[in-house]
């Protein structure tokens, strides 16, 4: 089984969010980056479980600059076999998807796994685009993945329930919460990661299709109003007259 796991970096959830250059650039000063949790906890860990059970190879792929290498090393420490960094500035989703597809197209991966979204941009579209560009089936929001005799069985979240699908041949998926459990790397893994191959390939020629205009912070949280539990009537009145939501 040859599996490609695409990982992105994301700011730690405790980071202070600020912008520079006239609100057109995310201020990375003092921000701790982590592996995007959906990519790490679910996609990568499930890929490793499948490899450990059936043999094979798990390759990490990131599209980004040298600042991606710490998170790539972490993925290698958790257990991936090798890694590729496409040396490109990540811009819009289509650009990233084109880089991934261009790299993966002739490598014969059985499964290309992504997280369901990044926790910073929440675009959720890269894996779908990769599937389209490679003309492969796409199973989004998968919460379970089993592979038996070349047939993959997946469970995916659908409105109000679960859907079970089977795929034969190569495919792309996006992993959602539940597919696996977080793994903490161990010292053996950290030591092994020192010598695992990390190949840097130049960016493929691709156009970006959108242009970033600016970022804005969400409006500050308003003040909180407490209503005595005995006075439920007040709550109804305020929701009706002041908040005008009922």
């Amino acid at each position: 089984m040859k599996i490609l796991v695409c990982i992105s970096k994301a700011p730690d959830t405790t980071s202070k969010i600020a912008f520079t250059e006239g609100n057109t650039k995310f201020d990375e000063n003092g921000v701790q980056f982590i592996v995007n949790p959906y990519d790490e906890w679910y996609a990568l860990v499930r890929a490793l479980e499948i490899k450990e059970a059936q043999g094979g190879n798990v390759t990490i792929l990131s599209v980004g600059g040298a600042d991606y290498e710490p998170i790539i090393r972490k993925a290698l420490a958790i257990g991936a076999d090798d890694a590729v960094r496409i040396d490109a500035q990540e811009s819009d989703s289509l650009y990233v998807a084109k880089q991934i597809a261009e790299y993966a197209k002739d490598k014969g991966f059985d499964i290309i796994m992504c997280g369901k979204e990044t926790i910073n941009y929440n675009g959720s579209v890269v894996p779908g685009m990769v599937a389209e560009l490679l003309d492969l089936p796409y199973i989004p929001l998968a919460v379970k993945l089993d592979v038996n005799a070349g047939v993959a069985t997946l469970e995916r979240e659908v409105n109000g329930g679960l859907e079970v699908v089977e795929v034969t041949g190569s495919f792309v998926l996006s992993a959602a919460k539940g597919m696996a459990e977080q793994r903490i790397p161990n010292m053996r893994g950290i030591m092994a990661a020192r010598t695992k191959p990390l190949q840097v390939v130049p960016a493929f020629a691709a156009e970006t299709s959108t242009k970033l205009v600016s970022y804005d912070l969400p409006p500050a949280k308003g003040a909180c109003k407490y209503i005595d539990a005995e006075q439920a009537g007040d709550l109804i009145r305020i929701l009706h007259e002041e908040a005008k939501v009922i």
Partner: protein
Amino acid sequence: MRTDLYQGHDYYLMDELLTEEHKLVRDTARAWVKKEVSPLIEGAWEKGEFPRHLIKGLAEIGGFGPYIPAEYGGAGLDQIAYGIIMQELERCDSGLRSTSSVQSSLVMYPIWKYGTEEQRQKYLPKLASGEWIGCFGLTEPDHGSNPAGMTTNFKDAGDHYVLNGAKMWISNAPFAQVAVVWAKNEEGRIHGIIVERGMEGFTTPTMHGKWSLRASDTGELIFDNVKVPKGNLLPGRSGLGAPLSCLDSARYGIAWGAIGAALDCYDVALRYSQERQQFNKPIGAFQLQQKKLAEMITEITKAQLLTYRLGQLRNEGRATSAQISMAKRNNVNMAIQIAREARQILGGMGITNEYPIMRHMCNLESVITYEGTHDVHLLITGMDITGFDAFK
């Protein structure tokens, strides 16, 4: 206890001095602590027991001999990585760090440095994996700050030694398989001997009634005509310098560890001061509370700089014992002061086990006493700078 929300504090951007591997080691230790230890530490402390099921995980994150070469089962990391692991462990609990630093610096270190190749092969891989736990017997009931006065002794009995005496206050003793014991030979010279559980006449009664370091097991080592094979003597070094060099390594780890305890207290107090409202504003908005918090982060930052530099010197093999004493003394004292101040910021909540501060404060009372008391380290600095020995 509440969810562990701990975040590191790095006022002087010290992270820029760390390698990616250092940070990975730190993240690993922190993630493990939050997942496996934080939820149960208050209970373990209350029960007065080291949670032994943690040993395997401690080994996996490099808690046992991280700087020991990989050929002996260690991780081959540098001294800064060792310090970082100690800091993350003590951030949670000084007892957790004690279990790990005794194993690393007081058991594996002397076997690695002063043992034979056979002893290294026999003990180090099992100690690194946590299959065996070790302890270090130096202190005796009548000889604490003055270990040179020890009375534990061994006699040559032809094909083996016969060991007699008693050690007290020994961390990990109640469940250790291996004890590195310091004892005098017939000429009165101090040697290290490896004693194994199961040797006849060797017992390890648990000590009870501690109000400090409760999540670490402490015991006695009693030797009643214990026959120890001659091959268990550490041949590489003798004299008081041998155990003291192990203490150098452990004290260095404590210097890092104490910063962890201080950071946890500061982190909790800072968050509490931003959330707790009195007189219609957060208590962190009052100057008196700000003074406490500002002084805490100042002291933490100074300790971080001191300790990082000490780590560089240790990596180069240049750190002196006196330099290590200064860092151990300064950092533990800094941490204990911060724990006391932080506890007050939390008011009444500060004395409960909802928050870790009171536990850190109690633990640090041991840390300021063991591995050389606060006074003893001052005398070491005093002797180093004046040339006069004020011990005797």
